C-alpha cells in the first residue's frame, strides 16, 4: 500500500516539476520572441525612416578622420573615408532588407511551382526538373553567384538575381519532397476523385497544408540570402558605391580593422541580429501553428 502511495507521490512531483519547467521555458521563449520582434521592428523602422533617423549624410566624407573611434558626434565611429558608421548602418538596412526579400520572392515564385509540378506530375517532368536542380546544386551557391556576377557585371541587382538563381532549386527541392508526402494523403485522393484540376489540388488544397514548410524555408532563405549577399558585397561584387549595404560596409572596414574595429563590429552585429531574430520569429510562428493544431 505504501509503495503505491510512494509511486503516486513521485508521479505528482514529476508532474509538478515538468509544469514548472514548462513555465520557465515558456517565459524564456516569450522574452526571446519579444526581443526578436523589437529588433526586427527597429531594423524595419531604420529602413523606412532612414533620412529622419540618420544623424549625418551617410556619404559625407571627412578625410581627416579616417577610422576615428566613437565620439560624441559620431556615436559608432567613422570609416576609412571618415563617414559616419551609424548613419551608414541605418541607410544600409534598406538594401540589406530589400536584397534578401527579392531573393526569397524569386525563389518562392519559381521554386514552389516547379517543386509542385515535379511532385505532382512525377515521371518525365519530375526527372527533368530534378536534373536541372541537380546541375545548379552541383556548384557551390556562392561560387555560382560569383560567376554570374562576373559575367553580367557587378551591381546590386545582378547580385540579387545571381543569389536568387541558386535559391530556386533549394526551394524547389524542399517543396517537391513536402508535396510528395502530401500527394499520397487521402484527402488529395479525394480531390482527384472529385475530379478537381491539378491547379486547384496543388494551390488550393496542398499548398496551405505544407504552409509550415514554406514559412520556415522562406525565413531561413531570407537569412541565408542576407549572408550570401553580404558575402558578395564583401567581395566587392554586390552593391556598388554610393549604394550602401552591411556587407559592403564590412569590406570597406576590414583594412582598418586594427585602427578601429567598430567599422567591422557594428555591421557584423547588425547582420547577426537580423538573421537570429528572423530565425527565432520563424520558430515561434511554427510553434504557434502547431500549438493551435494540437489544441483543436
Amino acid at each position, binding site marked *: 500500500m505504501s509503495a503505491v502511495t510512494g509511486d503516486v507521490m513521485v508521479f505528482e512531483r514529476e508532474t509538478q516539476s515538468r509544469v514548472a519547467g514548462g513555465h520557465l521555458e515558456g517565459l524564456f521563449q516569450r522574452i526571446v520572441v519579444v526581443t526578436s520582434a523589437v529588433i526586427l521592428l527597429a531594423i524595419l523602422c531604420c529602413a523606412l525612416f532612414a533620412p529622419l533617423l540618420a544623424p549625418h549624410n551617410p556619404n559625407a566624407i571627412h578625410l581627416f578622420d579616417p577610422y576615428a573611434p566613437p565620439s560624441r558626434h559620431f556615436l559608432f565611429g567613422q570609416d576609412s573615408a571618415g563617414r559616419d558608421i551609424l548613419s551608414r548602418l541605418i541607410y544600409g538596412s534598406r538594401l540589406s532588407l530589400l536584397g534578401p526579400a527579392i531573393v526569397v520572392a524569386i525563389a518562392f515564385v519559381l521554386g514552389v511551382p516547379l517543386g509542385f509540378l515535379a511532385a505532382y506530375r*512525377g*515521371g518525365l517532368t519530375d526527372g527533368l526538373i530534378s536534373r536541372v536542380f541537380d546541375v545548379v546544386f552541383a556548384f557551390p551557391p556562392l561560387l555560382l553567384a560569383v560567376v554570374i556576377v562576373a559575367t553580367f557585371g557587378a551591381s546590386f541587382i545582378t547580385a540579387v538575381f545571381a543569389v536568387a538563381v541558386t535559391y530556386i532549386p533549394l526551394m524547389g527541392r524542399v517543396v517537391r519532397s513536402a508535396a510528395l508526402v502530401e500527394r499520397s*494523403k*487521402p*484527402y488529395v*485522393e*479525394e*480531390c*482527384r*476523385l*472529385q*475530379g*478537381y484540376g491539378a491547379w*486547384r489540388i496543388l494551390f488550393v*488544397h496542398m499548398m*496551405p*497544408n505544407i504552409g509550415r514548410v514554406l514559412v520556415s524555408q522562406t525565413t531561413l532563405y531570407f537569412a541565408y540570402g542576407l549572408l550570401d549577399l553580404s558575402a558578395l558585397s564583401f567581395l566587392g561584387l554586390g552593391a556598388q558605391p554610393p549604394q550602401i549595404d552591411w556587407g559592403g560596409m564590412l569590406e570597406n572596414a576590414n583594412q582598418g580593422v586594427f585602427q578601429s574595429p567598430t567599422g567591422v563590429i557594428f555591421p557584423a552585429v547588425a547582420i547577426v541580429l537580423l538573421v537570429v531574430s528572423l530565425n527565432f520569429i520563424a520558430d515561434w510562428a511554427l510553434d504557434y501553428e502547431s500549438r493551435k493544431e494540437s489544441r*483543436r
Partner: protein
Amino acid sequence: MSASASAVTAATGGQSLSLQEVTTYLRVGKELKPVILRVDLHIDPGEIVGLVGESGSGKSMTALTIGGVLPRGAVTEGRLLLDGENLLEMPRSRRREVQAKKIGFVFQDPRAYIDPLWRVGDHMTEAMRVHLGLSRSESRDRAIELLDAVGIDRPERRMHQFPDELSGGMLQRVMIAGALSVNPSVLLADEATTAVDVTTQAEIVKLLARLSAERGLSVLFITHDLALADIVCSRVCVMYAGRIVEVREGRQIFDDPIHPYTIDLLAARPTIQHRVARLPVIKGVPTSAMDAPSGCPFHPRCRFALDECRTGVPAMVPVRGGLARCFRAHEDLATLAREGSSASSTKGGDDAARS
C-alpha cells in the same frame, strides 16, 4: 424537415451501374498484374449491393476502378456501364467528368479524406462550385440542406467548424453529404462504417439505406462485415483474390452459403447462440489476384478441393437462386462442412479437456 426534403428528394433520375467482365491491372515494375479479374456487378437505382471480402481481395480496387482514380500505369479492360454508357470507351476528359459528377465516394476514415485545413462549409460547397457552377450563397444553402438531410443538427454552425472539431460519426455524415452534393447517381461506400462505433454504424447504415431509397442512388456497400452487409444490402457479392466468387440475394448468403470460402467465412464468425471453445479459422493465408495460384484461387485453402480445382478456373454457375464460382457448387457443401467441423470441434473439445 421540409427544407431538407427538397434536397433529398431531388431525384437523380436513377441510373444503374454495371460492370461487365471488368479486369484491372496495376503496373508492377515492367509487368501488368491483375488486381481484379473479370468482375461482373450490377446495381439498380435505389439498390444497395454489398461487396464483401478480406483485405487485399480487390474490394477497394473495384471501387477505384469505378471511380477512375487508379495508380499511374493501371489498365482497365471490360465494360463499365453507367446508365448504358460505357465509361471506358469515352475520351479521358469526358470520362473523368462523368465519374466526378455521377459517382460519389464515402471512405472509411473521413478525418483523413477531408482536407484538415478546410472548414466543413468550404468542403461541402467546393464540388458544387466547381462542377455545378453554383454561387457561394447558392451552394451554401444547398450544403446546409444536405447536412440537415444526413442528420446533422445545427448545420449552419457546423459549416464554420473544422473537421477536427467534429466527431468521427459526424464527420462521416459530412462526408456522405459532401459526396451527395453534386447529385451523383452512384455512391461507393468503401468501408464507410468500419471506423465508427456500433451505434453510429447502425445510424450511418440506416442513413445510406434511406438516401438510396429516396434519391434512387445505386449504392455499392464495400465491407468486410458479413452481418452488416446482410442487414443493409439487397444483394451480396463475395470477393476472393480479385474475383467475385458468390452472389446471393438478401439473407440467402447466411442461411445457405454455396461457395466453400463463404461457408468458412461464416463459420469463422462468433455467434451469440453458440459458444465454441475455439473459433474455426480458414487455414492458409488470403491471397490477392496478383499472386493467386493457378486454377481456382481458393483451392490451397479449400477443404473440398478436387484435382480439377488446381488446374481449371471454375465458371460462375447459377445455383439455388444465386451464383457461385465453384466446381462443387451443386453439392450441399455447407452441410458437409458442418458435419466435418462438428467432428473436429468435439475432437478439439476433448483436447481442451485433456490439457
